[in-house]
């Protein structure tokens, strides 16, 4: 009995790593498809390419009235040097990193705990709780910004990292993504542990969580990207220059640098770099993560 249940594989959603359609030889249709896909890919890469070329130009070349892909006075690191001298980007990156990491961690812990309760424990008021959480999925964050700002003022949290972090840890849709996954884990896996008198929290930590790594990773990716790129709330809740996150910090450089296009693009690229690099390394996991959580709603 125990053996059969243990070998039963845990449900896993793996949206297509394999192209199921049989590969045929190159037909006219397929060649046309490649051409269209390539045109789209070029269109989608041009903004990156143009930003990169601009960032490696001198300011004079960048603002020259003749648009050039190869600048007359050659490529230079001047823009990046100036941006680093201004010294804000590393600080903003750090602020984004630790606030997003904290948001992701807190979200995962509190969402997994309640999802476990909703999936496995029969307690009074569970139905009501579920309804309240489902209903809250539709609340759009912009509706909360005015009262939340006022509330954070009252908590004296404005201009502290807590103002950025705490309101961003509630992801009702992710609670249900996790609950759905927990629901599919066979209960037999836990019964042996219950026989041995293991507590709920031990079962949760030692059986449920290890089996849920793929979905935890998916939720973490979804929440982290959202937090890293969030603009509106960090913009409202921080004025202190030392607390700005990358997206909010970048908004301030436009006024500070004015028409220094090369520096603007250098800053934008430096801000874009961390997630792009992470994506290059974890492409499969990220794509899988987005595909499994994306339809749950935001």
């Amino acid at each position, binding site marked *: 009995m125990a053996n059969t249940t243990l070998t039963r594989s845990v449900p896993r959603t793996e949206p297509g790593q394999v192209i199921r359609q049989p590969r045929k030889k190159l037909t006219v249709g*397929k060649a046309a498809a490649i051409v269209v896909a390539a045109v789209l890919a070029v269109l989608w890469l041009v903004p990156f390419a143009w930003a990169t070329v601009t960032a490696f130009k001198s300011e004079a070349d960048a603002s020259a009235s003749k648009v050039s892909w190869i600048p007359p006075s050659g490529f230079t690191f001047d823009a990046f040097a100036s941006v680093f001298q201004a010294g804000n980007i590393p600080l903003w990156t750090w602020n984004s990193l630790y606030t997003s990491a904290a948001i992701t961690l807190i979200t995962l812990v509190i969402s997994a705990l309640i999802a476990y309760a909703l999936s496995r424990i029969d307690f009074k008021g569970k139905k009501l709780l579920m309804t309240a959480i489902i209903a809250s999925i539709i609340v759009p964050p912009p509706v909360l910004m005015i009262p939340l700002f006022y509330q954070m003022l009252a908590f004296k949290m404005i201009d502290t990292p807590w103002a950025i972090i705490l309101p961003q840890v509630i992801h009702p849709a992710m609670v249900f993504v996790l609950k759905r996954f927990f629901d599919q884990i066979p209960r037999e896996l836990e019964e042996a542990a219950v026989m041995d008198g293991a507590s709920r929290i031990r079962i949760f930590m030692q059986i449920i969580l290890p089996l849920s790594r793929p979905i935890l990773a998916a939720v973490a990716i979804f929440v982290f990207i959202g937090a890293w790129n969030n603009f509106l709330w960090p913009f409202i809740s921080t004025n202190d220059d030392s607390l700005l996150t990358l997206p909010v910090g970048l908004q301030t450089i436009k006024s500070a640098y004015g028409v220094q296009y090369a520096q603007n693009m250098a800053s934008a690229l430096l801000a874009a770099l961390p997630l792009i690099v992470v994506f290059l390394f974890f492409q499969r996991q990220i794509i899988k993560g987005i595909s499994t959580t994306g339809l749950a709603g935001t």
Partner: protein
Amino acid sequence: MSSSTVSRQTSLVRTKPTPGIKTGPSLRRSRDNVSGWTFAAPFLVFFLVFLIWPILYGFYMSLTGKSLTGANDVLIGFSNYSEAFADAGMWRSLGNTLYFTVISTVPLVLVALVMAALLNIGLPAQWLWRLSYFAPFLLASTVVSLFFVWMYNPQLGLINDFLSKFGIPKIGWLNDPNVAMWSIVIATLWWTVGFNFLLYLAAMQNIPAQHYEAASLDGAGAWRQFFSITLPQITPTTVMIVLLQILASLKVFDQIYQMTSGGPGGSTRPVVQYIFETGFTGYRLGYSAAISYIFFGLIVLVSALQFVITRRRSA
């Protein structure tokens, strides 16, 4: 409760029956109540403090003349709402939001579908296409805005320079009130279409291969297969993508605020920006809370529609 769960529960509780003390199922049940709410507690605290309370408090604020300076903190009934309904600025920004939602949702769904369909044919170097289409989604709105403001620059920008090669006169991408919203849509399409593309791709790759094999045997070509197999099979995904996209587009703020600040002449200002400005620039917190609730009503309406549609589908 089914009999099997009851019998399992009793067998699992290993306490000797002692008279006068709760035993068996009832002990188990009260334990479940405690542990259930204990597991739920951390989330609930955040949920109540940072979601439920602001919703209730925001509604209360909308019934007051509250301002950021703290003055006028008295209940004034629904007069903020009646003022909002007569406020041309609110209607205009609401109209801008709806306009953006309509003209952005169509390309954001269609282009995503085309991208996924192209890849699903089985093009070589899958990762390369996925990377190019999806990468912009990983950028912060501010990065996207910096990229596009620079490319849209009327004098020095890449786009006008390219068009001039075909004799097209310079376009004021972000300065012309008739064009600005479309420019925002193009930037938004570039930025977020990758998300919908991934959802479509995942749905298409979940279609069992046998469907296609059977169709090929019947002599159906790729074009025919797309319309008679792929498209019908992914209809539930399409419904979800369209609804999620509408909800996302209704919340538009970041890229518009960063690229045009709602200009020129308020022609791109979305309702979220109107709420933001009334509250934080105009200091009228009560009034802006009222507009938030009107906007919330709109979102609830769309979500209710989504609920009805998805319910009908699954029923």
